[in-house]
Each structure stands twice: as structure tokens, then as C-alpha cells.
């Protein structure tokens, strides 16, 4: 998936979970940290599927509380 498609996918999930622009940016950083630490998704290069992104968004918001 290309850069724009990846970002669009993250933005869509962030929007669905009501994240602010700052939360969305930090969520993207969290996803990248997960990838780099070997906790990436099941798509190419460790990218996340929509379902995986939703799970990550839940986890991110829960741990951000």
C-alpha cells in the first residue's frame, strides 16, 4: 500500500474514534513504534489491516487515558 493510502487508512480510523489531530499524529507514531519493535501488522512490511488498526486504536486510547 502506498504512503497516501496508509495515511488515509489511519486517518479514517482516527476519525472513527474521534481523535484530535494531535492524537492522530501520536497514534501514527505509536503504530510505527509497534512496527519497529516487531509488533507490526499482518500486511506487507508489517503494515496493519483495518481490523488491526481498530484494535490498535482501542489499545492506544485506553493506554492514553
Amino acid at each position: 500500500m502506498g504512503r497516501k493510502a496508509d495515511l488515509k487508512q489511519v486517518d479514517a480510523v482516527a476519525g472513527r474514534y474521534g481523535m484530535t489531530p494531535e492524537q492522530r499524529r501520536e497514534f501514527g507514531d505509536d503504530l510505527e513504534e509497534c512496527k519497529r519493535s516487531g509488533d507490526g501488522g499482518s500486511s506487507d512490511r508489517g503494515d496493519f489491516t483495518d481490523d488491526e488498526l481498530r484494535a490498535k486504536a482501542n489499545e492506544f486510547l485506553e493506554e492514553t487515558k
Partner: protein
Amino acid sequence: MSAALAEPAARKCDPSHSAADANEREHAVGLADGVLYGLVGEPFRHVRVSYGGELQLHFGELRQPKSAKLKGKLLYGSYILGLRASAWILSPGSADFTLTDGQLQPAGTPIEAGEVESGHAIPPGALVVSAGAFHVEPVDGIGLRVLLSDGSKLVVLPSRSDGAEGDTPVADWELFSPKGFVLQVGPGTLAVRKPS
């Protein structure tokens, strides 16, 4: 920051060429310049590649992330410039190479975006000498040019719409500022969002 920027603003960049549209584009560039002015004089800190290959440049005072999950792992600048759907070229002042997102073919040798994270491209502490927006006629979008005191140059060009933006268009580039204002530019729209 001007009073006009203290309020949320959204400006459409209409592709037609009437005088009113020209004024609208000029106004949008002026709004962007108003926010970008705050970046001038700030020190460059570091570059990070975020999820999706988005290059982020951090400037100003370093601080911890707001997310508890990221605290202790990452540091953020008080200004964060995110190069989202845009094409960009970064020419480090003291290096004989050019970094690019792959959409542009600059002179010199392009290397991968991730290589810039190593920190040898731009010296931390280099100051922003100028930061300005400009209208890009072929795609009717707004680009960005940033110059640093070590001679490094960043040029950001808005993307051509893929015609399938849907409900979640990806901004060409955005700037997070210390007081929580977020400048989001493109596609076809410029918005200054107030702190939430």
C-alpha cells in the same frame, strides 16, 4: 499570531482563475505564512519517519508526547512539520546528497527517507531562517519552502488529487504549533485548527 488565526478558518482553493479566486489563494497563502512565521528562529531538532512513511521534522523546545504510551520513548519538538501526502525534497546544507520522498527526481543522489533519521543530514540546532508558503498552479495547491541556517533547504509540493479523496482526504502537509494550533494544508483546503 494574528487575530484572524485565533479563529478556526477553512479556505477553499478554487481551481478557476477569477480575480476572486486569486484573492482567495493569496489569502490562503497569507494565512499559512502567518502560522509559519512562528517557526522562524526555532532550532531544528530531529527528523522521524512515522507510520505510512510520513516524514516529520521537529523544531523548537523538546517535550514528551502527551500519550502515556509514548512517554519515555519519543521526544517531540514544540513545532512539528508533517509531510503527509506531499512530495518533498530535502537538501542538507553540508551534505552532497539530496533526500526525496521518491515522487520527485532531484539532481544528485536520492537516498531513502529513513536514512535522514540517522541525524547526519541536518545538524541539530540549525535555525529556521525562513519558512513560507506558495501557490502551485498545476495542482492548485499550496507548497512550502523552509531554509535553515546551515544551508539546508526543504521544498514541499502539494499532491495531485487521486480523485478518490472520499470522507478522509489526507492533508498535503501540516504544522503543529506549541499553543496547540494546527495548520493543515491541502488537498484544496487550508485550515487552522484551534486547540481542542
